[in-house]
């Protein structure tokens, strides 16, 4: 039977305070705050729209994990690539994709990023360097490695950030990728979003080695654990990893210790953990609250300015939801397009 749920001390451990988080400039702090909030509000709205039947199928929310993707995105430059699994809305928004197009895709409408054909789990924007949006656990890992291969092949100094979960970290193709990436010195940062659960399975029940940053050891890939609830720590670690990859040293593993507040998908009652555990993380480690507090304490902005950001973000998300709701469904003829390219 289930081991007692881990105490919150274990949920958000070790790295808190470990290593020096990057100091962010005022602009960076505010931009990160705005982006994390945008993702949070987007996801809350998506959850509501799901409840109203406007979004169907599987819908995996990113609430709680915002600092990971926002911090990593801060170290990327044009031409870098991002790829992830199905918990992907935050990644798309952080990459600069239009929330209206993302929401329209969630609703299966014609102006969604995939013309309504992909849905929540399958969106792409080559223009923004976002390569999906993949539904099969672990499948994005070799693909991300291949994107990095293309960078190396072309001799540019771009990198590919390849995100996957603690559950995905047990798929065999992850290790096949690790080996090739190190063997051929491919510029790929593997970001393991360890939110402690894969669906209903706590990491301690699925993994012999739960320190996932060590998973590259036998391939000689360096790795470290990062406080994924602190956008500054994420950025600092991301900078180091990106520089390593850009310099031609091969892959790097960052294990982000993070947490998802909602169920695995909209239909998961999440009975495998206690409400106290969720509340503990929410209350004491929330990436957005933390950033907000820090901004106020360091007098980078006042309440008024933050309130203004809050309402601008709400406005943006409401617009996205209005857009998605009124966007027509795809034309029936779209059923047969895009199967092949001429």
């Amino acid at each position, binding site marked *: 039977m289930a081991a007692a749920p881990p105490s919150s001390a274990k949920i958000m451990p070790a790295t808190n305070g470990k290593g020096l988080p990057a100091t962010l400039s005022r602009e960076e702090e505010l931009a990160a705050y705005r982006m994390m909030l945008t993702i949070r509000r987007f996801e809350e709205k998506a959850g509501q729209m799901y409840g*109203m039947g406007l979004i169907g199928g599987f819908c995996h929310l990113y609430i709680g994990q915002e600092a990971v993707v926002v911090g990593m995105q801060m170290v990327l430059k044009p031409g870098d690539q991002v790829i992830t699994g199905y918990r992907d809305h935050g990644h798309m928004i952080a990459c600069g994709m239009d929330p209206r197009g993302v929401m329209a895709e969630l609703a299966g409408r014609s102006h969604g990023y995939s013309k309504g054909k992909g849905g929540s789990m*399958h969106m792409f924007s080559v223009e923004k360097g976002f390569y999906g949006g993949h539904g*099969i656990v672990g499948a994005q890992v070799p693909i991300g490695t291949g994107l990095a291969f293309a960078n190396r092949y072309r001799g540019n100094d771009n990198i590919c950030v390849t995100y996957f979960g603690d559950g995905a970290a047990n798929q065999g193709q992850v290790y096949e990728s690790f080996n090739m990436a190190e063997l051929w010195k491919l510029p790929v940062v593997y970001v393991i979003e360890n939110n402690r659960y894969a669906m209903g399975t706590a990491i301690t029940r699925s993994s012999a080695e739960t320190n996932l940053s060590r998973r590259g050891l036998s391939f000689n890939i360096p790795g470290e654990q990062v406080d994924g609830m602190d956008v500054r720590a994420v950025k600092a670690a991301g900078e180091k990893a990106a520089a390593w990859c850009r310099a031609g040293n091969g892959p790097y593993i960052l294990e982000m210790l993070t947490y998802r507040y909602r169920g695995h998908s*909209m239909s998961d009652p999440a009975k495998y953990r206690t409400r106290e555990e969720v509340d503990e993380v929410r209350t004491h480690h929330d990436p957005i609250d933390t950033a907000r507090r820090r901004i106020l304490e360091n007098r980078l902005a006042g309440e008024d300015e933050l309130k203004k950001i809050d309402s601008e973000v709400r406005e943006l998300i409401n617009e996205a939801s209005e857009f998605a709701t009124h966007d*027509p469904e795809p034309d029936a003829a779209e059923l047969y397009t895009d199967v092949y390219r001429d």
Partner: protein
Amino acid sequence: MPIQVLMPALSPTMEKGNLAKWLKKEGDAVKSGDVIAEIETDKATMEVEAADDGTLGKILVPEGSVDVAVNTPIAVILNEGEDSSALKAPKPQVQRPTPPPAPAAKSGAKDSAVARPQAPFAAPAPMQPLLDPDIPEGTEMVTMTMREALRDAMAEEMRRDKDVFVMGEEVAEYQGAYKVTQGLLQEFGPQRVIDTPITEHGFAGLGIGAAFAGLKPIVEFMTFNFAMQAMDQLINSAAKTLYMSGGQMGCQIVFRGPNGAAARVAAQHSQDYSAWYSHIPGLKVIAPSNAADAKGLLKAAIRDPNPVIFLENEILYGRSSPVPKIDDFVLPIGKAKIARPGNDVTIIAWSMGMTYALKAAEELAGMGIDAEIIDLRTLRPMDTATIVASVQKTGRAVTVEEGWQQCGVGAEIAARIMEHAFDYLDAPVARVSGKDVPMPYAANLEKLALPSVAEVVEAAKAVCYR
């Protein structure tokens, strides 16, 4: 303006639910994120969180209410500064955009296909008449969902044989992603009901190894979409080893899980693998359409000394139908069933395709076309004799499948009819199938991509030259 809280949709297939419990009282302050109520869906009890801050002004649907339709207003939340007088305002503002032109996941055939739970939900009418020569006349029948029938089959076989065990993602503590293994951990313990990491290729191979050593694993794939990760082990190891070892090493194993399209889960999560596994010598392939067949055939599969691919269907899990109350109800593998006798045209289907076929038969009857429906049940070995005998009688045949046409099961059936009943055919065999595209997400396109009752009716009329 007060805000209405609506009954939420909490799963891809949910249309209504029970309001189990209110956790806040009228007058209580609520904050966004607070749990205000518990809702029972067919699969789980879910918490409803408030999306806004305010006061719970009025509860519109009391706890204990059953079958509350999605989107029904269940409560009103008052904003800061509003008091209960605001409730008297003629129309509380509903925080909700207008519904989409076509509501989610409503292909005609799926309207009644929403997963239904056992009590307290009303059981839908049995989905098909029971005409099974393997069930003695006068047998007492119990109505149950396919989900329960599958679980009972596993539990009975596990009680009977200690070498039988279940393994897969979320099968134990979570009670199954689709709740098919509900209660098994509690009865059989963690030694025999095993949660695996997400490593399909690994645990499929491990299961095959355990079978080589004489155990009888039931390996659940959360869905068959994920079994593609394990394809090499299924085909190269499970299917071929008996032959390669000159009959020395058999592989008694069942791979089971939902197959085919669910609702709105897009291309990587909705695919019918009937044809894929049917192609492989060494495998047996079963795809039941109702609870009785699911139970009798799963028990047979677990006892069969060969690797069996057991294709279930998420949409059918919640459907109820009668199951014979027999101590040890085992059906023969490889035998099709005449689900509806008729004289004018033979419609051949299995699994979800039976839903379309049976509804089409009713419509056709109204037009004076008397369709005979064959439920194939087992795809490999295929019961050619039953198909041929029927076509010799009717002279016309239509196949129905969710999968694609090229090299599909329908193509195989058509070839066998041509080989064995060519002289009896009055029209070319017609195939109704999924469209030749990956499954789209959008509700309207998904509906077009799937086969429909109307298409089966059209095809049957066409082969009857009507």
